[in-house]
């Protein structure tokens, strides 16, 4: 088993929470993993990405080789496309459709969504809307993780435990909200 994942978005959008959740799950599933993050200047509203590598064998590189990524999970539509050259031909692009507009020249959203639809393996969901619908408006990132869970090859229960661990300090209510967000995203991916 080997999964190479890029998690992308804008600094502050909860990318590290997705990465941390998969990390805890990997640990419980006794898998090897390496997770490379971006700290520093880019975290100030700039483009950020995390390389997450999972395997049942030892992993060498902290970075995924070009064109070998199994899955891009993007919390922002344009940011998912930014790393598309990293994606394997049969890889999946799982992305939010709600843009994060903090630059004056943000492209036309419809054109971005058209580009996303060009990929046969895409799941484009309005994660913000779904998060609100399940009563956990801050959990758009976990909605996307739910959708990605279809391809993760990690037990459902293990992933749920990992969510519990990551949001443990924030209390029962937040954990439950994230569970609902996770389920909603997962359901969409399985109903495709």
């Amino acid at each position, binding site marked *: 088993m080997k999964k190479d994942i890029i998690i992308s978005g804008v600094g502050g959008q909860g990318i590290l929470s997705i990465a941390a959740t998969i990390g805890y799950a990997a640990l419980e599933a006794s898998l090897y*993993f390496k997770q*490379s993050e971006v*700290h520093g200047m880019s975290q100030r509203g700039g483009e950020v990405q995390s390389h997450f590598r999972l395997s049942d064998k030892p992993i060498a*590189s902290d970075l995924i*080789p*070009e064109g070998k990524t199994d899955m891009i999970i993007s919390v922002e539509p344009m940011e998912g496309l930014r790393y598309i*050259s990293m994606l394997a031909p049969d890889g999946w692009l799982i992305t939010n459709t709600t843009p994060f507009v903090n630059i004056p020249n943000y492209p036309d959203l419809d054109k971005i969504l058209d580009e996303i639809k060009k990929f046969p393996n895409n799941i484009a969901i309005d994660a913000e809307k779904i998060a609100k619908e399940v009563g956990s408006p801050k959990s758009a990132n976990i909605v996307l993780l739910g959708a990605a869970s279809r391809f993760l090859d990690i037990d459902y229960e293990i992933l749920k435990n990992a969510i519990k661990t990551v949001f443990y300090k924030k209390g029962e209510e937040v954990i439950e909200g994230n569970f609902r967000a996770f389920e909603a995203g997962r359901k969409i991916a399985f109903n495709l």
Partner: protein
Amino acid sequence: MKKMVLLGDEAIAQGALDAGISGIYAYPGTPSTEITEYVQFSKQALQDNVKFSWCANEKTAVETALGMSYAGLRSMACMKHVGLNVAADPFINSAITGAIGGFIVVAADDPSMHSSQNEQDSRFYGDFAFVPVLEPTDQQEAYDMVHYGFDLSEKYEIPVLLRITTRLAHSRSNVIVREKRPQNKPKLPTDPIRFVLMPFNARRRYKILLDKQPDLLKESENSPFNRYFNAEDKSLGIIVSGIAYNYLVENFESHKVPFPVLKISQYPLPKEQIERIFDECIEILVIEEGYPFIEDKLRGFLGRGLKIRGRSDGSIPRTGELNPSIVGKALGIEYKTGIKPPEIIVPRPPSLCQGCPHSVTFEALNIALDGYSTGRVLSDIGCYTLGALPPYNSINSCVDMGASITMAKGVADAGFHPVVAVIGDSTFSHSGITGLLDAVNDKSPITVIIADNLTTAMTGGQFSPSIGKIEDICRGLGVEEEHIRIFEPHHRKLNEIVQILKEELNYRGVSVIIPRRECLVTLTKRTREERKKAQAKKV
């Protein structure tokens, strides 16, 4: 066997705690910050009474750590690569005095300049100072090398440089940790004269340092971190250092490279193994993260002898961070070009947060300077450096920590007025104070804006060393009371702020303007924590 999930930076910190460290000193700087931050919030460090400080700058950090080593205890100073420039004086000289308690200096290099002004390679500093350099390949080695480094340092009474790069600093993985060993007992040196680097003694100590070199070479040759992997195909020999080793093996099935590989993680360079790979192979490829340090050493000035390929000869790009594809391509491995990103994608540069106090300062400064030719705002390193970008375009320089005030003085000396320096509170304590003293002594006509957000914001909100003391420091340096102007940078006060700026821009002497309002990121974090504490009390 206990396993932990740690960033490379955190592995160094946990390694230090388990290896019996007594003090860690640092100035925050990406990608090194998380080492000291880990110790700051570690229960183990608290229990063991491990001293930690966010120091005024890297020089004070290295000197304090050296002092602790002088007193027999294990100590560490951590910084980003350019921080070692600031600390170069004590670092180089500590090699001559030598260490007593294990003494490690960590320098985190930033190839590709993700968060830096240059991509200098700290291994040169190790070479320059004649001290051993350790360069871990992964998180586990980062952890293990701290134990090893302290032992090496104590055995040869020498500082050890631990060099990492961004990717390892900020990548997380499993690390097997060991039982904690006891700290050293403090004891003053029996021969303190060795720390007196007056010429007569410095000459003696310098010779001692040089005399240690053959032993340090032997240590490298026998190091568990320098490994020779033999293979059948001798058409190529690969010398690879640090994290680049991972990118190399990533390119081969089961990580088995068909050519002989010499992996280097300890310097001075292991001569015996290098001789062997030169004797056995027809051509050499050197893969290293950073400058072509090993490659140029091996090639020499004339470049005669065996063909050596690497970053200098263009087989691998001369600049920027490595990755598996770059290394693979240097080995002739074909990479299918991935899907081209659509052209409509635009870059998303970092920017000041919505409502950041700096944005008000820049807006006011732009209004106040309207009508003057551009190019008269010298600035510095911190979040406010983002004021160089649209929509502000307010600042004209960012060179090194503290250079705003001193460069502004130079521009003023060249005859321009008004001239402005923009510096943050933490950068002011790091290297701004001495420059301000120069300006006061010369009565230079400069307006110094110390944008005080009460924290070291860019690196994530560490303690700012001059907090609550800035105006007192300025007074003490001799800035006139009526030209120290303090206000809260709020948008609703814009006109008032512009007025203050205009008044001080007209003054032909040193003015200090202090816009003071807490960083929104630390404010939000603090409010949240305080609310949580209040709730806990109620329960």
